[in-house]
């Protein structure tokens, strides 16, 4: 008999083929890699910002100097100074953990609460589902900014409350995604079989339903994160979230607005920071999306 191994052209270590192929698909999109890389750098900068000292924030510097590459600028202030003479680069770094940090907290909260509610709604059907879905529909019908505003008005202004408000806005999306997928999974024959076998509902949930909703939930999380960053910065901009003199990026934008005709950089740069952060998150999401859909198509 012939050694069949002679015929195989692929290496034997294809056991982890699944994860590997997913990574390969993800890698194949340049944007997704750039996004991951970029976000990594931003997070590192945010951590740096947490521990950065306050020296450059003193208002003893020349006001409104342009960035260092401009002829009127200097190298002591890499990105120039703002209206109050504070170094913009330092403020960006110190603001990163505020804008990005609160966004991550907000999304995490929404993820946990939303997934839980979604699981309940998907599992218990009937009245529980009705109640949860109707509440979500109400929240959904209110434009996100108005909802956030109402929460902030009721709880009081501030960065943390802005985070809560944004979390509330994000919860319905998680609930809906989770619930749809749970219902989908529950209808599959293997779940019915497990139930008939007498398996405990929580066990079914953990072993079979969870792995299948991991992918869409991850995607939903990236979308939620990008929304959160923009919304929290927006609330800061409007003076409803983070308050001056916090270096939150939205607040920086709002402060710089008064002098935007003579110091455009003070307005451009914090916004660019927000833009780049969100682009990175969205590119990651786009890459994830392709991985998920690639699986479906083949």
């Amino acid at each position, binding site marked *: 008999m012939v050694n069949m191994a002679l015929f195989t052209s692929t290496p034997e270590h294809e056991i982890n083929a699944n994860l590997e192929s997913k990574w390969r698909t993800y890698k194949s999109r340049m944007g997704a890699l750039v996004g991951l890389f970029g976000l990594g750098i931003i997070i590192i900068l945010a951590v740096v910002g947490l521990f950065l000292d306050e020296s450059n924030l003193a208002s003893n510097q020349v006001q409104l100097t342009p960035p260092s590459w401009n002829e009127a600028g200097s190298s002591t202030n890499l990105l120039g100074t703002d209206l109050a003479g504070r170094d913009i680069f330092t403020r960006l770094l110190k603001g990163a953990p505020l804008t990005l940090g609160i966004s991550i907290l907000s999304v995490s909260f929404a993820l946990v609460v939303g997934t839980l509610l979604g699981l309940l709604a998907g599992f218990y059907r009937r009245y529980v589902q009705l109640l949860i879905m109707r509440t979500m*529909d109400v929240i959904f019908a209110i434009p996100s900014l108005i909802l956030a505003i109402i929460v902030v008005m009721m709880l009081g202004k501030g960065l943390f409350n802005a985070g809560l408000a944004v979390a509330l806005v994000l919860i319905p999306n998680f609930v809906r995604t989770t619930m749809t997928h749970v219902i989908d999974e529950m209808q599959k024959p293997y779940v019915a079989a497990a139930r008939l076998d007498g398996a405990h509902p929580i066990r079914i949930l953990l072993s079979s339903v969870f792995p299948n909703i991991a992918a869409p939930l991850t995607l939903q999380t990236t979308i939620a994160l990008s929304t959160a960053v923009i919304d929290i910065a927006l609330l800061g*901009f409007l003076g409803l979230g983070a308050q001056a003199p916090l270096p939150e990026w939205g607040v920086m934008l709002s402060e710089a607005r008064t002098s935007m005709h003579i110091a455009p950089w003070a307005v451009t740069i914090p916004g660019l920071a927000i833009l780049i952060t969100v682009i990175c998150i969205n590119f990651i999401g786009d890459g994830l999306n392709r991985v998920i859909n690639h699986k479906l198509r083949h």
Partner: protein
Amino acid sequence: MKTFLLRQLLFILTSLLGISLISYLLFTQGVSESEVIDLGYIAYLSQIFQGDMGVTKLTAEPVVESFLHNLPASLELVTLATVFALLIGIPLGVIAARNHRSVIDIVINNLSITAYSMPIFWWAIILIVYFSLNWDLTPVAGRLDFIYDIEPVTGFMLVDTLLSDQPYRIEAFWDAVNHLILPLLTLGTLPAAIICRMTRQTMLNTLSQDYMKTAQAKGLSPFRIYWVHGLRNALLPLTNMLALQISTLMTGAMVTEYIFAWPGIGKWLIDSVLQADMVSLAAGLLITSTMVILINAILELIGLWLNPKATHNERIYHG
């Protein structure tokens, strides 16, 4: 069809109920601040149905009046922005799908991701800084230069300028257009990007269908294949696309109007918030949410109507 309508109605009613409750909470808070007579929830509701939603904090004028006064400006902006988004988004999506995986596709894809990652409030400011301040091409704020005195007939500036009998009406028209450009770009960019991506996706799905191959094998012209067969099916989810954009458009309109000092309900709402005018906020919440719900329902109905699978349900059996 009937059960669907009934369920829709129920859904609308329950949502409105929930929202009116929140609105009521806000209202009572605002009312207690100004020490006006306290109202029960039912009384509040009946007052609303009579068209009375309280008075504004600052000017003590009826909220409903104040709101309606500012509505046309928003309608003009939002409608034009939607049209803009559709006119840009759909063709770009089709082109991207037709040239799948080519450079064009990648460029459009990345551009659209960048576009919907933009914070609207920053995008507005950037546009102002460069187009208005640096290059002096467009005005910084407002709907019309104050030197033009136009009689508000419809509330839509583009229409009113043309209807006016002032000698400078054509000038005023173009001035109105000039004032519209930046707000339009600001508000329309995000929806355009999203519509582009959605069109690209549905178009890609459509293009892989067998009936597209049939169309080509029939010998039809490329125009007919893509723009008649392809687009027709790709746009079926269009009403859904638009429905998802409603909330985004409203939020975007609020921010855009605020930054451009555009006298619409978005700015009105934000001003109410900054003045802590709870009564106006309560009214604003109720009206905007109702609009969102109603427009969603209408769009869903239109979507069903356009889909032959929903309207022509009868199977035809032949021996």
